[in-house]
């Protein structure tokens, strides 16, 4: 695995076009899913998806292969979303960077039905969408990284640029919120 990552790092340094094509194919679903959870907008997720790969091309030399490529990829994607939020000045910087201290981080527009909601409504006739929408994005994000992407705690801390203790506390709260929300929807 470490050798694979090193080879990947070398290819990214060279800006190997075949490698980039292959990576885009390989990670398209996971990256898009992560961005969708983060933005709750298909259009934005699509924009950020493309922008993330442009960044991967431009900054590929910064990936050293010492950790999982997907963790680096998600971090780039997350930073792009945060940068965009900063530019839009929709939320205060403090709330974005330290959501535990203030209002929970919400990347999605609050007054629109989330695409997650719409996708689920269309594709699966179960009450899951309402339950997930009730979980703040900051918790949903770590749940996705841990239980869908199966990243390690340190890797999640790397993606979030947050201390391990913060990651753990968000996961515990997130899991509790998820269980509570599912229970609520089942009742």
């Amino acid at each position, binding site marked *: 695995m470490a050798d694979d990552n090193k080879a990947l790092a070398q290819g990214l340094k060279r*800006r190997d*076009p075949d490698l*980039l*094509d292959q990576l*885009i*194919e390989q990670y*398209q*679903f996971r990256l*898009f*899913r992560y961005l*969708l959870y983060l933005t709750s907008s*298909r259009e934005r997720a*699509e*924009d950020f*998806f*493309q*922008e993330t*790969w*442009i960044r*991967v*091309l*431009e900054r590929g030399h910064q990936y050293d292969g010492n950790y999982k490529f997907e963790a680096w990829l998600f971090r780039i994607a997350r930073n792009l979303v945060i940068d965009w939020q900063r530019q839009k000045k929709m939320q205060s910087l403090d709330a974005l960077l330290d959501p535990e201290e203030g209002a929970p981080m919400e990347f999605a527009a609050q007054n629109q039905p989330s695409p*997650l909601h719409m*996708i*689920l409504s269309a*594709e*699966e006739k179960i009450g*899951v969408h309402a339950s*997930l929408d009730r979980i703040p994005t900051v918790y949903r994000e770590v*749940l*996705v990284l*841990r*239980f*869908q992407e199966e990243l390690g*705690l340190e890797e999640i801390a790397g993606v979030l640029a947050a201390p391990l203790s913060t990651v*753990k506390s968000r*996961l*515990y709260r997130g*899991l*509790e919120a*998820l*269980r509570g*929300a*599912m*229970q609520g929807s089942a009742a």
Partner: protein
Amino acid sequence: MSENLHARAEKLIAQERIEGISQAERDWLAAHLRECAACAQVTQQTNDALRVLRGLPISLPRGLAERTQFRVQLRAQEMREREPKRRLLWVMCAMSWGLGIATAPYVWQAFEWAGNRVGVPRLVWELGFGLWWTIPALVAAAVVVLENLRQANERDWSGR
């Protein structure tokens, strides 16, 4: 059964899925769950919630990978085309600094001679000499900054 035991069990149920637990803790939890229906239900609910989260269907926009690959290839081509210009800039800077170092004693004498001839204070012609040294570096830095700004603007326009 004590409230503390249930609280410990609930904590271990979450911890097992988030961080993992030791064998002794796993044994204790298994024994507790055999006796406690409420905590067994919490386990079941947690498993169900995670199963649902893992199984959520999400469809990809059509042609997303192809469109992204096309954009990335275009950008890569653009970067390849710009690389020689950037290299030329650094070569010129290096030559300029090399020449500057090689000719420094003569230029110093020239500034001194001109300063004395015009009758300006020593500090003024020394500052002039300093500027003569730093101007190429400042120009190179300005070109790089402007180039990066231009690229960022182009990306903003093409990206959104």
